[in-house]
């Protein structure tokens, strides 16, 4: 099977996306943006799976992507619900202000 784009390039893209996501999670203060960044990270890993699957001609990669998709959907719905609750309680979405659980 010939492919126009080499696996390495796709992996690089996935890595780039992942780092972007992590950076977003770390530097963002708003929980919604952090959630978005997490979604980017999930998609980055999904991309890596698809690329790997196509590289070895195995269906597992795509199966994993569907798992990730389903999980991401669930995560987003629960995450957003939690965020709503947090906003109700604290009137803020600033992660630095939500640090009650320190040791």
């Amino acid at each position, binding site marked *: 099977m010939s492919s126009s784009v080499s696996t390495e390039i796709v992996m690089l893209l996935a890595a780039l996306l992942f780092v972007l996501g*992590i950076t977003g*999670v*770390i530097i963002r203060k708003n929980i919604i943006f*952090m959630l978005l960044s997490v979604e980017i990270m999930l998609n980055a890993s999904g991309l890596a799976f698809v690329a790997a699957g196509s590289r070895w001609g195995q269906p597992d990669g795509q199966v994993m992507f569907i798992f990730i998709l389903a999980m991401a959907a669930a995560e987003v719905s629960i995450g957003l619900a939690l965020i709503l609750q947090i906003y109700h309680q604290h009137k803020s979405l600033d*992660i*630095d202000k*939500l*640090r*009650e*659980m*320190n*040791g």
Partner: protein
Amino acid sequence: MNNLLWLIPALPLAGFLLLVAAGKHLSSKLVALTGVGSISLSALVTIMIGLNFLSSATDKETYHQTLWTWMDVGGFRPEIALSLDALSLVFVFVITFIGSLIHVYSAGFMAADKDYSRFFACMNLFVFSMLILVLADNLLLMYLGWEGVGLCSYLLIGFWYENPANGYAARKAFVITRIGDTAMALGLFTIYYQFGTLVMSEISANAASVWQPNTPIATVTALLLLAGGMGKSAQLPLQTWLPDAMAGPSPVSALIHAATMVTAGVYLIARMHVLFELSALAQMIVAGVGAVTLLVAGFSALTQYDIKRVLAYSTISQIGYMFLALGVGAWTAAIFHFMIHAFFKALLFLAAGAIIEALGHEHNMFKMGGLKDKMPLVFWTFLIGAASLSALPLISAGFYSKDQILWYAWASEKGSPILWFIAIFGAFITAAYTTRMMILTFWGVTRTEIGHHPGKLMTIPLIILAFFSVVAGFIELPHNFGHFTLFSDLLHRVLPSTVLQADESSEWKFQLLAFLATFGGIYLVFIYYYREPYKIERLRENSSFQSLYRFWHNGWGFDRLFDLVFVNPFVFIAQINKRDIVDRFYDGITSVTEHLYRLLSATQTGSLRWYIMGMVIGAIIILGLQIML
């Protein structure tokens, strides 16, 4: 008849048990009857058994009675068994006879005390333990009696327990004697492993075959036993408890701290004489301890104010004579002096008790005086006792017993001129302090008025004891005074006779010197305290004399030395370590754990981004390591 032997200790024990169980409910008459009666019955049984024993058992020297086997552990099989021979007979006689007299006296003396029944209970227990001590057939049972008398001594010294000083004196007595006891226990262990038994007759029979003379093990064992004896008999350096023990009631001092318990060491050494004979060094040490003690205590007696302390130091000194006699191998002389001393010292203590009570608990001799005409009976009996103590020639029993010791200190094979000189110098001092005590107490002006006179219960024992303090000496007379040897004949069934190195014909010279020492002591004190008292006043102004006086008065500083070397460090270490230094180690572990926990919990900030950073850095490190390795 002899098989009633067990009754002798059992009667006082029964008295004790009755008094403990029902003492609170008995009337004081019944209490006294129980206390006195049990001991008197015991004395009666002793006399009967003694007569029977003496008439029948000439060939068989020991009567043996096993009550039950105490324990039986792999060959170690001590029995609760009594054995009677001439030596224990003498001791049992003295204990029960003088014991019952002192009990009679106590019935009067203690009549006003609220703890009447407790007093008699303790006294009965004491007599029981003391009888076990001298009747025991093995060393372990003897150890039971040995510690038992220590307990009773403790209880009776601290009889008036509400005064902390009495409690202190009692504890001091117990702990110091326990040091000796512990050494003695080690001696018992050695003996057991050397002889495979603790039965005294077997040890004596086998000693010569198991040990060569003068081997180190023989010396060490003998010295360990001696240490036990030194503790109980208040010999140097374990003598410091006895003067303080005078905190107890006077009958206690008479019975325990003069007549019986303090001579337990003499009994032990005489009983184990075979072991001591195997070690010349040990025997020399016994003599040396006795000689030094008799001098040291004599000087201290010379400087006391308290009449009972004079008597206490004099007891130490007289027991020193007994040790000296034991050390030079004059076994029978030591036991003879023990018996005579028991009579006259019990008499002196009881008479002193009568005086003290009459003067409203006044112990200080310098506040007494002029009692000669006010308490004639006490005066005369006391005088007889004092004469015996200072060994007044010919008419006092003390002369005959002490003269024998003086003679053997010179003449025995193991004797020496030095020992003799110390002994005769001691006799001089003895006469001096006795006279001083007599003069201060009975002559001069009256310094304290008499409260009430002693009753019959108290005076009759005094008279009887005074009688014996004169007569008892006549059962053993030196060879140039008729050579009457009833007592030593009796004891030679058990104890060997003394080997002499000097000629008996020269004995009269030494007797003459002893006369001179006694009269010299009396005369000197007579001059200084009675005829020309200003001389003693002048001496008192001399500062070096003063400090010497104080030094002697405080018992040669032994108390302070022991406090400094043993007691204070012990208490100090105990006090600073009260909270247990080992526990600080575990506290240390706890606090290290606590700090670690603080440290770790500080990383949990609650900030989500901090955690993510941590995760990312961790992941990078792991990846990096993966790549690099």
